[in-house]
């Protein structure tokens, strides 16, 4: 799945190192220009500097300068250099207009802004439905920022990531209502109610049932305020039996949630259980390791706080 978001833009995407394309003049690319092996890089295209060129100029040069027919992975930086959170309607329209120039595009990420350009809460995203329609060959799609969208429909999409400090419950329901028959990996940054997040177990119920995405092998219910409740629901959710990896990281998981997880259905079939950024005690970590001897349990970033003082990793 896509690299964790905390504050930085992606360094790798779709298993490829990111090549930053943020200039509007070919001469500014330097002696190396762009790599010859276009297919071995993920291109982040757009403005990346408050005083740099706007994305519109950068995009134009990118189309002129790079053999886009060989681009496999594309992430979109800012359209406006001075208001990086805005302009996604323009960027989406520009990309859709050029869709036929990207026959090899497998992976697309929208809103790849480091927090210094725009805090995640202020990225005003557009419904990604039209983009997915324009790129029927995509297998991986990610988007950063708060998002209101209609259910998606795509035949080939295997991995979907929505990164946000607050994913509206209606958006979570739209994901659950999407027609994505090939989906094997889903990562949702659920976020905080303060930024319009706060999806509940009920909103996630169709996903947890395992019925809507029958090929799902990875489920990430991440950056959630009520991770304990989610863990308790996951403990009995039918979808778990089909998973190879479960990710409840970046949230507020405490001993109560982990105990519920251990008391539920068997988890020993999981290859990985990711709980990074958590509030578990050492005793509970030992219990998890003992109960899941063959599972890679990621318990990095242990924090200590009373339940009322816990916090999620990505908010504003």
């Amino acid at each position, binding site marked *: 799945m896509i*690299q*964790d978001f*905390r*504050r*930085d*833009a*992606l*360094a*790798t995407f779709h298993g490829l*190192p*990111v*090549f*930053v*394309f*943020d*200039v509007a003049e070919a001469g*500014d*690319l*330097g*002696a*190396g*220009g*762009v*790599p010859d092996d276009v297919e071995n890089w993920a291109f*982040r295209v757009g403005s*990346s*500097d*408050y*005083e740099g060129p706007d994305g519109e100029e950068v995009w134009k040069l990118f189309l002129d300068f790079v053999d886009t027919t060989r681009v496999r992975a594309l992430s979109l930086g800012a359209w406006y250099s001075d208001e990086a959170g805005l302009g996604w309607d323009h960027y989406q329209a520009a990309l859709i207009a050029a869709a036929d120039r990207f026959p090899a595009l497998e992976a697309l990420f929208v809103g790849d802004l480091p927090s*210094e350009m725009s805090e995640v809460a202020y990225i005003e995203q557009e419904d990604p439905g039209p983009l997915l329609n324009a790129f029927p060959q995509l297998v991986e799609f990610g988007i950063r920022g708060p998002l209101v969208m209609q259910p998606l429909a795509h035949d080939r999409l295997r991995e979907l990531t929505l990164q946000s400090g607050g994913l509206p419950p209606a958006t979570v329901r739209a994901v659950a209502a999407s027609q994505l028959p090939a989906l094997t990996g889903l990562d949702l940054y659920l976020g905080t109610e303060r930024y319009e997040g706060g999806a509940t177990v009920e909103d996630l119920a169709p996903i947890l049932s395992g019925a809507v995405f029958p090929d799902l092998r990875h489920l990430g219910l991440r950056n959630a305020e009520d991770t304990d409740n989610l863990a308790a629901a996951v403990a009995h959710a039918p979808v778990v039996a089909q998973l190879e990896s479960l990710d409840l990281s970046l949230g507020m998981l405490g001993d109560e949630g982990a105990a519920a997880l251990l008391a539920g259905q068997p988890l020993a079939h999981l290859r990985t259980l990711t709980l990074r*950024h958590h509030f578990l005690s050492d005793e509970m*970590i030992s219990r998890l*390791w003992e109960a899941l001897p063959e599972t890679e349990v990621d*318990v*990095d*970033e*242990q924090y200590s706080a009373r339940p009322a003082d816990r916090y999620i*990793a990505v908010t504003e």
Partner: protein
Amino acid sequence: MRTLSWAVVAADEDPARDRWGGAAREAGVPEARFVPWRSVLADEAEFGSGEYVVCERLAGWAPVNPVGGQAARSEEFAAARQQLALAVAKAGALPVAAAGPVLLMLDRVERDAYLREKGLPILDGPQPEDRLSRIVRPRYSASDDWIIDGWHSRLFLHRTRGGYQVWQSPAETTTTTTDNRQLGRIVELLEPDGVYAVSGFHRCHLINDFYDIRFGVVDGTVTHAAGVVRERFVAKPWYGGRRRELADFVERFGAERWQRLVELAERTAALFPDIRSLGVDLIVDNGDTEYVFDVDPFGADLPGLVGLPDTVGAGLSVRAAVLRALSSES
């Protein structure tokens, strides 16, 4: 003028091989003969009389988790480098970098003691009050392997069933390393491998970033220069990232101070005349203070950057500039 005859000693999978290939095309010289390190270690490598020999790292050019192992790698490299030096000398070939000074540079403690003794400005070791602002790097390395700069770092503690390891994230991990206790624990875990700390320093600031200045020096003369962002993670900084063009620095520093920085880089390189291509990093403030921060015996890592006008690197990458210099004397 003879055709340039040269060899690159590198590991089979080292990407530097391709980079030298690209540099050869750029400089318009024949491609190098590739000599794998394994043949050097097996005493099977042969060199020609008068052949220039470029030497790359034995291993450790790609970041791996868990972080560490520099001390052991450095020891292996030192042994291999001496073996190579013997083979090169026996054949009458010409090393582009002599083993002795290269090995000195791969120990930051020894290197900085030497530079200080020669009168170059080096940051002092950290004082107790610098605990949150000190700069920590591996002792046995001269490259950008890992760095803890104040509270900025890509290192984090990874908890395993057997204890803790230090890992490096693809991006900055401020959320984990803002915790002073965790930073201390990271340093403690890396200490057996050798760490090198200097006091923190308020760097020069341009627009949104704090920069060091990296100079490429070929045959004692600065040929390349660019800014290096230290306190923030930048993906592929010279591949169209936030490379701060020279003009911005010169405007900020003024021509006189800029000339002083160039001279400091060249004074540093002058102490190592047997290394044809050096990277010299200076840490500078917005006022008039500057120190030598790092010296890279494998040449300045500035991919994609062309050299300054009126130098052997004009219009060329660092590696191509080296080849141009070698070919001009062949």
